[in-house]
Structure formats: structure tokens, C-alpha cells
């Protein structure tokens, strides 16, 4: 079957790729574009490791087809830092030890950033429920909440 030609923007850069109809955006990112920062934990929409933003909406890239990215603006973990300067969320995750194995981490960061863009001053409960779709098997979560609350505070006071 003929491949689809897709034109999109990823982290601000125009990107073109060819993909099969059944390939997910996650497959395209990881296998074709070598952007392996976006992780695959389940491929069924249950773990949040594959979180990206599409036109500023948070989505599971394992549930979206590559062809659907045509004409859209995609944001991934690779776009969070500007050059060597970490995003405040990244910095706080690091300081709070809000990660162990790190496979859930990109998904948490992308999801947290999406939250703070909608709601710059979330309550702890709002953070917990917003992130309830991101599973972590290592850290026990509490450091992640603290890191997000801390980063939100820092961004507000910047």
C-alpha cells in the first residue's frame, strides 16, 4: 500500500515523513524519526508514557495515527528544554528525585507542562487527578506532585 506523506511541525521544526496507514504517531516518532524520548509503556492508552501535545492538547501518541499529525503542531519531551537550559519542571523533577528508572518521566513532564499551561496555579488535588493517567511503577508519586507544585510556583513568580 502506498505510504502517506505527512507534513507537520515538531517542537517548532517543520518535519515531513512517510508512514503506513496503521502506524501510530508513537511508532513514527520512535522508529522513523529516532525521537525515542517519547516512551511506549502499553500502546493501549493506559499508561501515559507516550504523552505528547497536538496543537497544545495532551494526547497519548499510541492512540493517534501518524497521518493524523498532518498540519498539526506536535510537542514532545525533546522540546521542553531550551538548548542546555532545563525547563523549570525538568529542574524540579531532578531536584526532588521525582524519577527512578525514568521511563514514565517524559510522559509526566509533557503532561505537567500541559496542565500548567491551562492552570498556572493548580491545587495538589488538581495535580494528582490531572496526572492520574500517567503510571509510575518506581517512585511512589509523591515526589512528582511536589516537583510540579514547586515548578508551578517558580514559573508564577518568574
Amino acid at each position, binding site marked *: 500500500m502506498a505510504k502517506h506523506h505527512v507534513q507537520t511541525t515538531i517542537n517548532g521544526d517543520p518535519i515531513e515523513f512517510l508512514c503506513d496507514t496503521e502506524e501510530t504517531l508513537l511508532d513514527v516518532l520512535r522508529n522513523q524519526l529516532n525521537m525515542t524520548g517519547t516512551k511506549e509503556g502499553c*500502546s493501549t492508552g493506559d499508561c501515559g508514557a507516550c504523552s505528547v501535545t497536538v496543537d497544545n492538547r495532551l494526547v497519548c501518541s499510541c492512540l493517534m495515527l501518524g497521518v493524523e499529525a498532518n498540519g498539526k503542531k506536535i510537542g514532545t519531551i525533546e522540546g*521542553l528544554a531550551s538548548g542546555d537550559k532545563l525547563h523549570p519542571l525538568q529542574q524540579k523533577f531532578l531536584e526532588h528525585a521525582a524519577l527512578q528508572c525514568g521511563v514514565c518521566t517524559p510522559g509526566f513532564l509533557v503532561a505537567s507542562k500541559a496542565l500548567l499551561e491551562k492552570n498556572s496555579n493548580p491545587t495538589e488535588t488538581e495535580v494528582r487527578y490531572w496526572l492520574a493517567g500517567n503510571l509510575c511503577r518506581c517512585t511512589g508519586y509523591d515526589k512528582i506532585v511536589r516537583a510540579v507544585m514547586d515548578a508551578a510556583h517558580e514559573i508564577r513568580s518568574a
Partner: protein
Amino acid sequence: MSDRSVPRYEAALKVTGRAAYEGEVPAVGLLHAALVEVPIARGDVVAVDASEAERTSGFATMVSYADAEPLKPSPATALIRDRAVHFAGQPVALVVADTLSAARDAARAVRVTTQARPSVTHMAQALNTAYVPAMVGRFPSVSNRGDATAALADADRVVRHRYETAANIHHPLEPHAVVCWWEGDKAVVHTSTQAVFGTRAMIAHAFNMPPADIRVISRLLGGGFGCKGQLWWPWMFLAMLAAKKTGRPVRLELTRAQMFRLVGRRQETVQDLALGFSTNGCLTGIAHHVTAQSSTHAEYSDATAVYTRYLYACPNVTTSHLLVRTNEPQPVPMRAPGTAPGLFALESAMDEAAVRLGFDPVDLRVRNFADHDQEAGRPWSSNSLRDCYCIGAERFGWARRPAQGTAVDGRWRIGWGMASTMYPAIRQAAKVRVQLAADGAVLVQCGTQDMGSGTYTALGQITADALGVPVDRVTVELGDTVLPDGPFSGGSQVTASIFPAAAAATAKLRATIAAMAIADEASPLAGQRLDDLEFRDGSIRSRSGNVGEPWANVLARKGTEGLEAEGESGATQHPDLTATSMGYGAVFVEIGVNAGLGEIRVRRVCGAFAAGRILNPLLARSQYVGGLVGGIGMALHERTETDRATGRMLGETLADYLIPTHADMPEFDIALIEEDDPHLPGSVKGIGMLGTAGIQAAIANAVFHAVGKRVRSLPIRIEDVLGRR
């Protein structure tokens, strides 16, 4: 926060998405693999026919038992060399193709003919075949101290119940993966494994090749918890056979559904436990008998009742383990193996006893504290369990515990519960190499891998401390069989194992530099006394005289390229020990039970843990909290079930298999109680397992305290509280 709380060594890579896990290693001409599974729970494979699959686009090759036959027989090759089917969903072949979707299409097109035979799909169907395994881990299956039967018959009070725990799945967030290729007769294997050296040894055995021709690499591991070990080998071997057959690199990644079947589980247990007491609350007899599941192709038993031999003082203790073989997936160790299910029973029964005897649960435990190891008849190397009770109770506010069934918060009925936890402190053999460059840079290497728990950080810190340099000057290399031999990641023993080896290597380097400086006329330290020199702030200094210089200068003046030293340490020699080493903890929880809906929420947890010296409080706390959350999952959420008719798992997704999420989490208060332990190098004990055990019983005890209902089977779900089960 203490200055030992340095952030995770590799954290910057992980927060930016630049961390490369082994399944992500790029390779030119990479082929993707998919496994071909059969639906029957027991029987034989008659034929595997790839003729239709060969016509699918992108197909490269298929490997099955015909290709695996030349591998040497062993437990690691049995499943792929034989035609026998032991459980539903067992793979019988592997297909490789240009893309992953092509591989999956081709795998679906493979025609497998099977001959089904009657299967056993649950322990209850085959209790008459139960047998005693020779060993449970490194412990005998059966133990007898004194006469427990007589003691229980004579006891003033006896608490006797059956406790049950479900099969749990490890589910690290990164599924197992391998990217492998052959360079002539040599194999390169990038794989997520908890044991690079064990994996190399098994490849060498199966493929009958020298270990030196095999390189196994696992630099970053996306979690493991016990499942990234031996059960992965057969499927990894199939990928290696396909790479050999095609002459191209092959990548195999398990699907989340396959993680439910192919790489292990925490075994299901049924435990009969009896505690006998005198009226003054002293244990007089204990009988703990466990029946657990194993598969029909391999044998494994957790040391579930073993810890009952140690935790409390009691003259009469009997324990035993039985296994029942079923056509279900094979169990392996999972987070706090043995202690998590075993202490659920023991610590629930202690709570039941406290209620019966009219004791506070903490007081009853303190009363029965074991002041030495009664099973082996020797002292503890250190045991701060009573401090854990005391400090944990204080921080939690246990003295203010409301009367049972009286505390209410809106629609929530509140309960408090507590329990003890323990885990043995052991070490394996390890080698560590340290290199110093003339510019003062430090490189430390060990082949052991970091499961995600912090081995990079710990080894960097140990080395930096010993050489008196800031941690950011140290580069750490791990997870590769070309590096010095290191332990497997399991049993919470990596840090304790590599500590003495790193200490030996750095001690040699300090001695060499010090000798160089003393003998060097150009050094301000020329002629100083060796035992008066110390390493601090990147310098070597004399303690009494106010002189010193950066040690890099000493090297630079000599014009050396640098220095290198290797340190080595041995495994724990259990029979020769003069003291028994364990880590301990006490965990206190507050839960709420929704009066109408039966929902249970954990509201707050305080864990007090004593496990030797803590190298990094920040990461130690993180590991304890992670462990406690794993324990909450076992207590309230996690269970996998087999369809009795077909032997298939019910619900093979993370939507069906419940694990704790962010919204479920309470606040955690962690007390780190540090111990000096003269019997252990650097006073280091493992900490990883402690948090995961104990909390199950603490929660069950709190449920009783809240609503007066004793639930003796895990996980405790809404239906248990509402009383419909």
C-alpha cells in the same frame, strides 16, 4: 537536606528524553520481531507452518523449535526446544520482518497445529499433587524449632486462620526488549536485564560459545522488580537465532499483554498460620504452612514462611512450603519476595492476637521482640526494630489511636493499623575499577546494572567520598560485560556488594598517590607520615601540618597518564556467619473506608526503617516510598486471574490490572534510622525490599480497626468490605 542527598547521576538524561534504553539502540538493517502464540493451556505442537506468512510483505524469516533444537538443553532453553505447551499464550515461534506491523501480520499468518491435553488451570484443582520443594531460595523448605504442635495445644490463647495472596505482575514500565546482532561468531546483545553476567553465561551455555565472544549491555533499565531475569532468556534466544539466520540485527520487544505471561509473576499463596500465646502476651508456639503455585515447566518458591522463623522470640516454631504445579505462567521473585506475602499473614495474625489478648499492637510486638536470631542461634549484627516501632509510633501519633470503629470523617470511617517489615542483608561478589586521570577526572566502572534504583548515583558517591572529590568529577560506567564483574540486581544487595570493592580500589589509589607525594621532593608533602595524610576537597593534605596540594598535581608532575586500581569483594558466606544481618522497619497507616461504597483510601503512611548506614537520604526515601506504593498495590489493587476453563489470563492490559496511580496516593512520612553495624562493610544493608513488605498487613489491620471486618485475602477490594464475597 544533607549533603549526601545528591541528585540522581543520570537524571539530566532522563528528564530531557535523551536517556537511551537498550531497546532503542539504533542498528542498520534492523529487523523487527513478533512472537507466535498458541491458545491451548497444555498439549503439544504438531506443526508450525510459515508458508502463508512467507507471502506477507516484508517477511524475513521464522524461527521455531526446529531452529532451537541445536541449543544446549537447560531450563533456559526448555520452552523453545520442546514441543510441549505448558500455559495458554505460550510462544512457539518468532517471526522477523522489515517493520513491526509487518512482523505482527506475518506472525498472525503462521499456522500452528496443536494437540491439546487436559490442563490444570488453578491450584485448587490439584491440591492432591502438592509437594515439598527441596529449598525455598537459599533456605530449607521445612523448619522445626522446639515442638510447635505441643505448644499450640497447650497455649492459653490460639489465633489460627487462613490467609491468601493473589498472583501479581511486576509490570516495569519498560517492557522487555533486546536488540542483538552477530559479528561473525561473536554476539552483541543490548537487552534490558537485571543480570548482564548471568545473561552472558546462559547465552554461552545455550549457544555453546566462549563467554568472551558475547557482549551483553544493559546501561539503563526501565525498571525490573524481579522479572528481568531468567524467564526472558528463551524469548531473547529466539531473537538471537533470528539474527543469526538472517545475518541482520533483530529487535524484539514484548507487548504489555505478553508481560502478563512470559516473564514471571508473584506466586499465589494460601497460608495456614497459627500463633499460640500465654495470657501475658508471650508467643509460645507458631505454625506457618504455605501452599503456592509453580508452573509445569520450572520450579520456584518464595521463602514465604521463612521470616516467621526470625521475626519474634518464640521457642516452638514450625514452618513449611508446598508447591502445586499448574498450567499457568511461572512465578519468579517480585519486590520483597517472600516477606510481602509472608508478613501479610504473620502481621495480620499478630493484630488479631492483640485484639484477642487486649494488648496494643505495638506493645505486643515489643513484648515478643527477638533479641537474637533464635533459628540459627547467633546474635544479630544489628537490629533496631524496637527503635522503628518507637520512632514510627511517635511520628504517626499512635498514642492517640481512637477506639476501634469510632473515628469518622464525613462519610469516611477511619482506621489505623501497623505492622513490621524485615529483609535479609546479603552481598554478592563484585569487582570495581577506578581510574584517575592526570587532570583530576575520576572514572569508576562496574559491570553490574542500575535497575533504576540508583546504582549510578551510589557508586559515584562512594567513589567521590573515598577520594575526597566532588561527585560531579566522577564518571560512572555500568551495565556492560566488558566491565569488571558485578552482581545481579535483586535481593536489595547491589549497593552493599559494590561498596567494599569500591572501597578497596580507592584505598589502593590513595596509598599510591600518598606514597608518590611523600617521595616527591617537589611536593609540599614530601617526607610527611603516610598515616597523617587525608583526601579532601580534591586535595591530599597532612592532618597535623597545614600543608597539602591537589592530588592531580602529584600525578601531573610524574607525567603519568593516570592511575588505575581494581578492588574486589566476596559474597556473604552464610554458613560461616557469626551474626545474622537483616534490615527492619515498622509501618503505620491511616485509611478511610467509604461507608456507602466500600472504597478504601490510604490517607497517610509513616514508615520507620533501620537498614544500616544510608548513603543518600534523598534516594533512600524515594526507594522506600516507591516500595510502599508497590505494597499498597498488592494490598488494595493488584490481582491477575486465570479463566479456569481456558487457562488464559483475564484482562491483559494496564486498564484491567489495577495499579496505584497518583490520585490514590497518601502523604508519606519516612524516618531513616541509621545504624552502625560492625559486621558489615561500611555498615551498608540493602533497603529496596523493606518498604514493599509489612504495609499489606498494616492496611488490613486498619480496615479492621475502621469497620470491624477482618479481610484475610489480598487484594482487599470493595466487595470484601461490603461483604459480598
